[in-house]
């Protein structure tokens, strides 16, 4: 039996649920020598702004226990160079390509959405309202439910294909933001972006990142991400894309069981460029072993059986 790995996000059908997370996969060409890009479920390219952005000064990254902090500052080539220099290669792929977008005000998000709507090769967009490393934009839009709804609604009016909104974990109640994004007209939500963190060199008493704070990613954040995916999946009707510390198929399956329809692999691409291929194979093997016909049957299949004395209503979400 060959299990069915396909999933749908709004109108977008993916051959399998494994996507690459924005900012960890460049513009895909970087990995072309190492993996078969056409096997990926989808590719989300580096966060894009209207104008080129040079990013933050270094040091931009530091390794921490089971994770890393980054403060890249959304360095990117800008929309025009993306279209002229990066898109031609991406068009040669069969894998759906999504653009991750950010702006410093609602107008900038909307203008990007409008331009990208005209580019058929961009199968969808992921709206970044959750970057912790830029002064304006990013998380400023993701921490307030009303603003998150406004950005989503404004982008929705200009972009007709799949619209994903990427949520920040750096909020009091992520389900509240998720609901407002749903109300704004998103097709799916992805979570979590990095968790704001900090590391200090005790010998110099300086921060290890020039930006002082950065976003924590990697296996260290996975339990937080699984918990938030579980919460959000129960709170909204939209498909949820699970992101955060996925290194292996087992990690991806945790997210799917928690309620994710698809997953994004991020930091693991740096550690093992082949990991996405291994994760796709591992999910298929698991389904085969478990005799599950479709990965869709696994989504949100968390069970409470076997825990004596546990309030069943808690897991069922009632």
């Amino acid at each position, binding site marked *: 039996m060959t299990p069915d790995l396909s999933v749908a996000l709004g109108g977008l059908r993916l051959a399998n649920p494994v996507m690459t997370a924005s*900012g960890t996969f460049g513009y895909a060409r970087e990995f072309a020598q190492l993996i078969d890009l056409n096997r990926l479920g989808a590719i989300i390219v580096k966060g894009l702004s209207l104008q080129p952005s040079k990013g933050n000064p270094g040091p*931009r990254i530091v390794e921490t226990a089971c994770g890393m902090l*980054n403060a890249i500052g959304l*360095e990117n080539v800008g929309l025009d160079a993306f279209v002229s220099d990066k898109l031609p290669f991406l068009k040669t792929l069969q894998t759906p390509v999504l653009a991750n977008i950010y702006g410093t005000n609602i107008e900038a998000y909307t203008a990007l959405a409008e331009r990208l709507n005209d580019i058929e090769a961009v199968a969808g967009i992921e709206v970044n309202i959750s970057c912790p490393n830029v002064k304006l934009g990013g998380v400023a839009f993701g921490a307030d439910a009303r603003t998150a709804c406004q950005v989503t609604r404004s982008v929705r009016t200009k972009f007709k294909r799949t619209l994903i909104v990427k949520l920040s974990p750096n909020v009091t109640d992520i389900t509240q933001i998720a609901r407002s994004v749903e109300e704004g007209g998103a097709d799916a939500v992805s979570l979590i972006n990095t968790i704001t963190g900090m590391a200090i060199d005790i010998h110099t008493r300086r921060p290890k990142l020039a930006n002082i704070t950065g976003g924590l990613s990697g296996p260290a954040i996975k339990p937080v991400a699984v918990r938030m995916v579980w919460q959000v999946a129960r709170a909204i009707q939209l498909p949820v894309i699970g992101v955060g510390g996925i290194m292996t198929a087992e990690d991806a399956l945790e997210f799917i069981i928690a309620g994710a329809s698809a997953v994004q692999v991020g930091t693991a691409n*740096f550690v*093992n460029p082949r990991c996405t291929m291994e994760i796709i194979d591992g999910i298929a093997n698991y389904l085969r072993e478990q005799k599950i016909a479709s990965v869709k049957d696994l989504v949100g299949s968390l069970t409470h059986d076997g825990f004596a004395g546990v309030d069943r209503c808690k897991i069922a979400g009632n």
Partner: protein
Amino acid sequence: MIQQTATILWNQQVGPACYRMGLACPQGYAKARPGQFVMVQSGPTPTPLLRRPFSIFGKIGASDHPEGIELLYKAVGRGTQQMARMTPGQTVDLLGPLGRGFHVPVNAEKIYLAAGGLGVAPIRFLASVLMHDRGGIDCTLFLGGRSQEDLLCPDDFRAMGISVTLTTDDGTAGQQCLLTDPLADAVQAQPPDLLCACGPHGMLQCIAGIAERFSVPCQLSLETTMACGMGACLGCAVPKAEGEEGYHHVCVDGPVFEAGRIRF
């Protein structure tokens, strides 16, 4: 660029916490150039999580050993300490060759090489290629370190027929000064066609100044923290020279740069 499993051929201590590791890697390194680097994962993740970057120290010939490369490293953190405990026959996951190496113009006849501490790794690979491929080329090495034990493999260079000037901070070997002192004197007295250097940031900054003062072409191999080594994470940013906006990425734009393209 290939990701492959490489078998450790040897892992010998050659100085205080410094090791030479020979790796058999059947694919991809025939055309590796001096200055290029590899990303090594020496054990199961996630501790440490990220690969470690190392300049290629040399290639291993097919005559007496399997084809492969040699690395020179210092066990200073979790990743390199893990490497230091490994024994021949064990394997590492190797990604490479990566980055842009040194480019020595065909008409260059007189080359000065400058290496501080572990910065000797890409300089030795460069020297071996130049002495092998360019008959009659005149190479001089300036090798510096804190102490005698930090001067790694000067005999490798002498065996290639390269004249070696040693400096140490404590005077335990060679002249007691920074290597930039005799280097500056030599550049002034007999300017080379090219100056190639790798070492601590302060040393490279000083060498860039010497090269500018005497109008000598200069290529520097830079080191930064990096996560991926292949242009995806954008973590290894260094500022471009005055007058240019933005940053170079050490992993794909370098690690070897013309000195004039970097802002120190």
